């Protein structure tokens, strides 16, 4: 089984773009449209990495990250969001994320390369 990524993003176009690029790099990607759906999925599945947006309906990214901490889910998480304000970034970093990308300022290639560096070979150990 290739290494798996849980991708939490409510914008369809951005979700498809990221999911496609990460799958193309060889990873297994599971999609969730908000934090609640992501938590449901996490009940019976584990992942090597979580990538989450911040502004989402129902349960936003920060609430989702807080919930992960509460549930002691140690899966490393990356934020990919267009929110660039200091206070949101700080909250996210304090919740233990491993990186924070601003979508509009980051080519999709850079995100994929970071994931490759972080997770290594999709089929490796």
């Amino acid at each position, binding site marked *: 089984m290739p290494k798996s990524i849980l991708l939490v993003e409510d*914008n369809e176009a*951005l979700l498809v773009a990221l999911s496609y*690029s990460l799958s193309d790099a060889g990873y297994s990607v599971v999609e969730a449209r908000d934090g609640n759906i992501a938590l449901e999925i996490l009940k019976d599945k584990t992942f090597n990495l979580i990538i989450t947006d*911040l*502004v989402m309906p129902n349960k936003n990214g920060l609430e989702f990250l807080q919930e992960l901490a509460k549930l002691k889910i140690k899966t490393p998480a990356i934020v990919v969001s267009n929110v660039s304000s200091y*206070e949101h970034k700080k909250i996210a970093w304090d919740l233990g994320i491993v990186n924070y990308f601003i*979508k*509009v300022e980051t080519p*999709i290639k850079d995100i994929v390369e970071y994931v490759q560096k972080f997770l290594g070979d999709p089929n490796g150990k």
Partner: protein
Amino acid sequence: MEPHQNASDNVDKWIKEKKSIEDQVEIQTKELKEEQEKLLSSNRLMKGLLDNLPIGVFVMSAQGNPMIMNKIAKELSGRTFEREDGTPYPAEELPVNVTIKQEIPATRRDLIITKVDGKKVRLAMLSNPVFDAQGKLEMAIVVLLDITDEYFIDRAKTEFVSLASHQLRTPLSAMNWYSEMLLKGYADPLTKSQKNFVEEIYKSSQRMSDLVSTLLNVSRIELGSFAVEPVQYDVCKLINTITEELQLQITEKKITLVQNCKLTQPVVPLDPKLMGIVIENLLTNSIKYTAAGGIIKIGATSQKDGSVVLTVEDNGYGIPQSEQSKIFTKLYRGDNIKMLDTQGNGLGLYMIKSILNSSGCDIWFESAENNGTVFFVKIPKKGMTRKAGKKHLSGMQGMQS
């Protein structure tokens, strides 16, 4: 002639003279009354005019005593004067005191006053000197404007720009990513001309993304909601990183870049992201406004007082003398470069000056048209001043991802 006849003539003459004098007195009295009436009326007019002016006006003697104060000026009398950030406004910097002490006109300063009734008002104050015939300062005329409403309208507009810029980022991200994916051949391999077209879309979309990020940064600066987070950072390393990022543009214009970073203590408390924006803007400007084949020197030196002065010098088009006072104002674009570069947005220097001034740093320049420009940035010994970000619009309600 008979003696009594003579006396009678004298009496007549005397009576006539008396009458003439009385007439004159009457005329003069009438004239005086008219003059007095005119004076009173112009006094009333002046007072009425002053009191009904929609701005505050007061006149201060050269000795610092209030001479005239209209109704609004009385209403706008403050107990305390503060800056926008809540710190006390130094008395010697108030325009009226500047005019009286230095005998010069003082440009508009905005401040917050707390009135006698405890109400806070935002005030713009400016002042002009009046000299007597000998050229001695006689008084200062001070104008006060209540800009509270104007301030909140302006703030609402800035908040709108901030929100709008944020909202524009989602569709722009999609345009960036999908152009990138098309170029990578994710759909199907592109023909040569298809590739050229998509590259144009990608470049334009990225330019728009940069503009939107700048607008967002400017609106944050204006709202006071951006944070300065200094960490121990190597100035020379930062210069190096920015220079590397811009290497392509430098090479394309065949510009010779000379880097000279000589610091006794290169590690300074600074916010690398904000200082990076400053250096990048200055270097980008130098590249843009220097002819192909020109020379740009970038470096930093340690000063005796422990501060670091960073310089970006070019032998480019320079800034005309007549425009030098305007270059840090919002949306300013030099007349001599508008035609050379149509992409500029006139926000860069305004933004970096705001960043530097609100973090305890300073920026200035020397320039001569057709000779080039040197920009200097001074980071004090203690580094950039920490500033906590304020929460404004960045609350996520109403935002799209």
